[in-house]
């Protein structure tokens, strides 16, 4: 039949387009696409061009692609934020901690802390220039400290920067910082404080120009999409960096980021969710590294202005009621450590018996509630409305119900949560994560608002806590037995008062392609790629 079959009202059969024609068309389309695709955007290692070294030695060349879930916020350049990776690409710090939390030279070659702890003299490198070509001198350190003292920079270590009361220059490369009182976390400040170019700092916080002394120069930014960096050919560290450049890609959707990692288009990321990491860990194309800090410490906060949680036995009951192991496994994908204290294992304040003080014991929780005269309790719990935080909140709600505490979940978006946190207007309970316990303990108590002894979200105040925090902070030695005894006092008070009920400490999980080598992070999650390279 080769004519239309004009049935009564039915469609006409019209074999006008042959399958061969369709195939021809498809092939032509594919050909056009292939012609247009001179380069492949799906190529996992653009520009890789290793030129030297054996199999085990570093290779020069190549552009490393880093995937992030959150775009860079220029105004938070001088604060630790959700995307602090780029700080150490463009900038340097004065010193950097090693694995034992001992400071090592960076822009400061050497230092000497006065016996009374009231000053520190820094000898600076003399061979450092900014990307603009200007020479780095002591004046730039003075500017960096004053920059952090400025409240609009939102620097969490501002209180430590404010202890620097005076600057005494001895030539261009020696500087003495005079302190108002000794502080035990001075090198936390040096680890945290990037040295910006004073002449372009306003451009930096506007996100248009980033000028530092670091291994890479900032070349381009497409807001919401990417940041590009090229090798600093005049970097002070000889022969470094090995990489030609770094491309940071912003991929907000977790599934897309995971796909990008699987295809090799993202070679390094810290933003893969815990449950997704499990699907990559047995694949030899990837290398998974877990850090013990960097992704925040999860906690329940209690607002003591609500009578229901003013009795510390009620707060302790909440601490006993939570099944932290289940929380870590089910909500955090297993990539966290259960803990009753804010300190990670690398902290000088860490003790195993403190970290395990509160564990899942519903009977003990019920007994404490009875002791406090509580027969029924109904409390609101605020949490961030993202999927991860909601999962945490739901587990907390279930656990608390088992001991007779009814919890109404109050999901709020992140800006609202921050406003409630800072303005002390949280409901009776909230759950969030905090940072700044990763270096010296005094930094947490003076820099993280939930723990601040003078004013905090919980409206908790206690002369004993204030005294312990101030004693731990106002001393020059950070690791002596006396300092550790003071940290223990702070820990004991936190464990007893439970205005912040710590649950688990999540470390950053690094997912890297097997060819990516030599990547490190500092204590504030600044990405250090001085020694990084792409193996052949």
């Amino acid at each position, binding site marked *: 039949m080769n004519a239309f079959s004009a049935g009564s009202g039915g469609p006409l059969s019209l*074999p006008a387009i042959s399958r061969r024609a369709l195939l021809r068309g498809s092939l032509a389309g594919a050909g056009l696409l292939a012609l247009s695709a001179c380069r492949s955007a799906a190529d996992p290692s653009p520009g890789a061009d290793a030129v030297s070294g054996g199999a085990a030695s570093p290779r020069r060349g190549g552009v490393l692609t880093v995937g992030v879930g959150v775009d860079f916020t220029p105004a938070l350049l001088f604060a630790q934020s959700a995307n602090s990776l780029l700080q150490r690409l463009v900038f340097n710090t004065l010193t950097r901690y090693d694995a034992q939390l001992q400071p090592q030279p960076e822009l400061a070659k050497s230092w000497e802390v006065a016996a009374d702890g009231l000053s520190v003299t820094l000898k600076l490198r003399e061979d450092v220039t900014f990307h603009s070509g200007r020479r780095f001198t002591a004046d730039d350190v003075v500017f960096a400290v004053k920059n952090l003292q400025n409240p609009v920079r939102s620097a969490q270590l501002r209180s430590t920067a404010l202890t620097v009361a005076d600057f005494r220059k001895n030539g261009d490369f020696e500087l003495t910082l005079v302190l108002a009182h000794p502080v035990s976390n001075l090198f936390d400040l040096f680890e945290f404080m990037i040295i910006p170019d004073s002449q372009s700092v306003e451009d930096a916080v506007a996100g248009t120009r980033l000028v530092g002394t670091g291994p890479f120069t900032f070349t381009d930014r497409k807001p*919401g999409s990417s940041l590009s960096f090229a090798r600093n050919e005049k970097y002070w560290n000889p022969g470094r960096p090995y990489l030609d450049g770094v491309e940071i*890609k912003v991929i907000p959707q977790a599934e897309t980021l995971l796909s990008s990692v699987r295809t090799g288009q993202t070679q390094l990321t810290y933003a893969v969710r815990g449950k997704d990491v499990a699907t990559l860990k047995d694949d030899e194309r990837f290398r998974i590294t877990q850090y013990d800090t960097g992704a925040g410490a999860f906690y329940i906060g209690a607002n003591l202005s609500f009578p229901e949680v003013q009795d510390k036995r009620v707060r302790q009951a909440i601490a006993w009621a939570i099944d932290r192991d289940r929380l870590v496994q089910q909500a955090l994908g297993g990539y966290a450590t259960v803990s009753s204290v804010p300190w990670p294992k690398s902290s000088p304040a860490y003790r195993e018996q403190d970290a395990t003080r509160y564990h899942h014991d519903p009977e003990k929780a019920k007994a404490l509630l009875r002791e406090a005269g509580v027969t029924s309790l109904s409390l609101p719990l605020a949490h961030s409305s993202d999927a991860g935080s909601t999962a945490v909140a739901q587990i907390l709600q279930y656990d608390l119900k088992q001991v007779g505490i009814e919890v109404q979940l109050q999901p709020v978006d992140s800006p609202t949560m921050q406003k409630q946190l800072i303005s002390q207007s949280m409901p009776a309970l909230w759950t969030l994560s905090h940072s700044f316990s990763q270096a010296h303990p005094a930094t947490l108590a003076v820099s993280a608002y939930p723990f601040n002894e003078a004013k905090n979200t919980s409206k908790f105040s206690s002369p004993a806590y204030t005294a312990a925090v101030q004693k731990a902070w106002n001393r020059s030695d950070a690791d002596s037995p006396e300092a550790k005894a003071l940290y223990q006092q702070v820990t004991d008070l936190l464990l007893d008062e439970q205005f912040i009920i710590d649950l688990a400490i999540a470390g950053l999980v690094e997912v890297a392609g097997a060819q990516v080598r030599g990547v490190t992070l500092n204590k504030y999650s600044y990405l250090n790629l001085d020694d990084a390279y792409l193996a052949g």
Partner: protein
Amino acid sequence: MRTFLFKRLPSGLAVLLAASFTVFLMLRLIPGDPATTLAGPDASPATVAAIRERLGLDAPLLSQYLHWLGQVLTGDLGPSYAIGGQVSELIGDGLAATFQLTLAALLLVVLLAVPTALYAVSARRRALAGALRALTTGALAVPPFVTGVLLVLAFAVGLGLLPAGGHASLFDAPDLAVQYLALPALCLALPSAAILARYLQDGLERALGEDYVRTATALGVPRRRILWRHALPNALPSAVTVLGLQIGQLIAGAVVVERIFAWPGLGQLIEQGVSRRDYPVVQDLLLLVVAGYVAVQLLTDLLYSWLDPRVRWE
């Protein structure tokens, strides 16, 4: 015509002014503010106060509103609070990216829908026509966030042909830009292509059932000629109307698709602006949308008045 325009213009300006006030006020009513967002969770109230002062958020609301209105009128939209850069550049870049994506999707809608409809009506076997109809129903029913993930799994993870997400400039690297554009444009195009294909298929089937087709067949006109020269031109006008309506849907759908494929368009920009309480970005974007609608309304009124003089005399 000019008199008519002068009559209509004040109402358009009044709508814009009312919209600007509403947008400004609504943003301030949302809990959270830019200063606390920029200060971060560890900030002290002193830090928040300093940032609020720097951003001018400590000024009375009316003064803030008038300042913004002044910026809009002078065309200097100022800097973004959180995203960084100048608002006008951010909106310009976002607009270009969304326009690129929408245009590519529109092209794909036509390229997918027309052959599908033609093939469906000309298929020898009813089963094939049924299968194509089922395919279009599927494309219509599955939401873009599911289609997007499936496309990424198939073309990026499975076949390794196309990137999972990202963006390249069409002017700087057209070869890469086409590849970055392919999956988001396809994801965005599929539902609209399905709608258009079904409209066109129905139109073609109706046209092929007409007497003139039967006459042409009886006269021995080749079937390909009947389809292309007679049936298709008769079915196209209604399909073009549907295509026009789909443009709005494509722009709205781009908001979701941009997030899936990390495409830096207006959807991503407004999401970033709202989540960081970047008032200037959100205010200017929303006002731009309202201005677009007002302009379209004015143009439509002008067109009506040109077509029908009675409207001018009312």
